[in-house]
């Protein structure tokens, strides 16, 4: 378990402000955000390398705010693996095990086998590939059986095939070792794929946290919407069309330049509308269903496997997705005029 309560940390000119987050025991959480958001500083605070000015840190049920790193039972893996170059692979993995005993050698071999690097145990670090190095770093961090594993963009410098292989190994090891993981990433897809919890960070604070699906579906700000890949985030203004119902919501109009959409709102005034690409229905003629019909000109088609991204102009650039089969069925080409339909309830106001 990892729990931070209103933690503020100053690292040089940078400040991490009022961070509160809780990852349950055995959970897998991701910290995502742009460069300079404070993700690594937060991991280093949990590991004990940075001392908080205020706030408290708990690990596995025990308050560790004042404990040094060596007494926190935390494993740490950096993006650039940081293996000890003067030691062999086996010596790196066994570093935290405290001496060469039969049990320690067995543990080293066990992790090496699980990560597919048993054949490299006698090798020098300089002769390893990037993927092999990251596997060794992971084995080294897990060897002393930490209850918490902190990963700082561990897959960022790997090619896609190696990355996927290592992700599978990591998930298997997490289940096996029952370790709580907090991983830094700048990739929201990774959060959807791996995480039970995601926290979006920017400028030293957490903007939103929750299950990845919820953060993806209901971003609480334009920044989170953009960062989680919402596709279309439009700045504009909401004006009321109807009276508020019992739940406080009312039918309204969102305008952004020449674009006007019927939406369900909770308040009027300036805001952002999020139109998820998959919620924009593409057709040659306006569909009977749906409250908003936008006439769009296709600018570019981008095929990514079974999905085709349609970049169009509706007075503003927007992106919609259809299946590649559907795009081929409609024989869509750049320059075509199509209709985009979106339900008023599918327009998310943040």
């Amino acid at each position, binding site marked *: 378990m990892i729990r931070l309560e209103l933690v503020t940390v100053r690292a040089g000119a940078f400040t991490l402000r009022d961070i509160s987050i809780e990852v349950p025991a055995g959970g897998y959480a991701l910290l995502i955000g742009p460069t300079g958001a404070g993700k690594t500083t937060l991991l*280093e605070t949990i*590991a*004990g*390398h940075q001392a908080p000015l205020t706030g408290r840190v708990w690990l596995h049920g025990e308050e560790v705010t004042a404990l*040094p*790193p*060596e007494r*926190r039972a*935390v*494993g*740490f893996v*950096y993006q650039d693996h*940081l293996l*000890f*170059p*003067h030691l062999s692979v086996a010596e790196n993995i066994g*570093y*935290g095990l*405290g001496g060469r005993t039969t049990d320690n050698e067995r543990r080293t071999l066990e992790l090496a086998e699980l990560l597919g690097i048993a054949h490299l145990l006698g090798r020098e670090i300089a002769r390893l590939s990037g993927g092999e190095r990251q596997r060794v770093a992971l084995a*080294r*961090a897990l060897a*002393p059986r*930490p209850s918490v594993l902190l990963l700082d963009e561990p897959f960022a410098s790997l090619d896609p095939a190696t990355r996927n292989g290592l992700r599978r190994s990591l998930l298997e090891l997490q289940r096996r070792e029952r370790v709580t993981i907090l991983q830094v990433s700048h990739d929201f897809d990774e959060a959807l794929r791996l995480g039970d919890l995601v926290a979006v960070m920017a400028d030293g604070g957490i903007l939103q946290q929750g299950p990845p699906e919820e953060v993806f579906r209901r971003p609480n700000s334009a920044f989170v919407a953009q960062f989680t890949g919402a596709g279309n985030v439009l700045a504009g203004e909401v004006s009321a069309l109807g009276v508020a119902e019992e739940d406080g919501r009312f039918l309204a109009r969102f305008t952004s330049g020449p674009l006007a959409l019927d939406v369900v709102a909770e308040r009027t005034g300036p805001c952002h509308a999020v139109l998820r690409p998959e919620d924009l229905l593409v057709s040659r003629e306006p569909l009977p269903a749906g409250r908003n019909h936008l006439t769009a000109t296709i600018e570019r088609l981008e095929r990514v496997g079974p999905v085709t991204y349609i970049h169009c102009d509706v007075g503003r650039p927007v992106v919609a997705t259809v299946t590649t089969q559907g795009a081929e069925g409609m024989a869509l080409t750049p320059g075509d005029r199509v209709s985009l339909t979106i339900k008023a309830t599918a327009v998310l106001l943040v």
Partner: protein
Amino acid sequence: MPPRATATRLLIAGTSALLMLFIVGPLLRLVLEAGPMSLGRAFADGEVRASILLTLGCATAATLLGLLLGLPLAWALARRHFPGKRLVQGLVDLPVVVPHPVAGIALLLFLGRRSALGGTLAELGLEIVNHVPGIVAAMAFVSIPILVSGAREAFLGVDPRLEKVARTLGDAPMTAFRRVTLPLARRGIIAASLLAWARAVSEFGAVVILTYNPKVASVLIFDRFTTDGLPGALPAALALLLVALGVFLVVRLLQRGEGR
């Protein structure tokens, strides 16, 4: 190859050859002038043997003293931010710009019997001026800056996050230093120590003022030169040159062998 590139290469080769000649030429001339027979005469001379042994011993002591006092400072300068860090760095480098006879005079005033420190040390039985500790002090004064700067660079070359990783793997700060930082900085520290040692061996200006007797090799050579002229100084000069070069080469070779 374009003519400009060829001209640049020729210019670099020409200036480098001139520099090599400037370094090797005088030393080679000294060896040829002294001749191989004079080396035998030098080593048969008890005073020359004693002065060379004294020089090597004192230079080694000065280097060890530098390691003992300088390594913690070098580490702090590489790793820590503290008030006055730039001032401390400047003070450490100061002996490099002080002319060595001036350094000798300053040390004489600071460590002589009439000074508070020198007087106290003498009362405790540790005579500095005109004794072996005086030679070590003079050598340490001129060589420690080289050692501290080199060791600081060596520590800077080790990623501090490696120590952080070691800490999360259970090491206390000193253990992480011993198991990770020191082994990784070792080659740089040895190289810096070797340079400092060589600087100590070659020291004359500060030593001659602080401790004329017993004579280290450089003082003995100067003494023979002023009393017996060039023929008197040459054998001892050749002996010191070869011994210093020999030690230097052996340590370098050992270091290279270890790096493989």
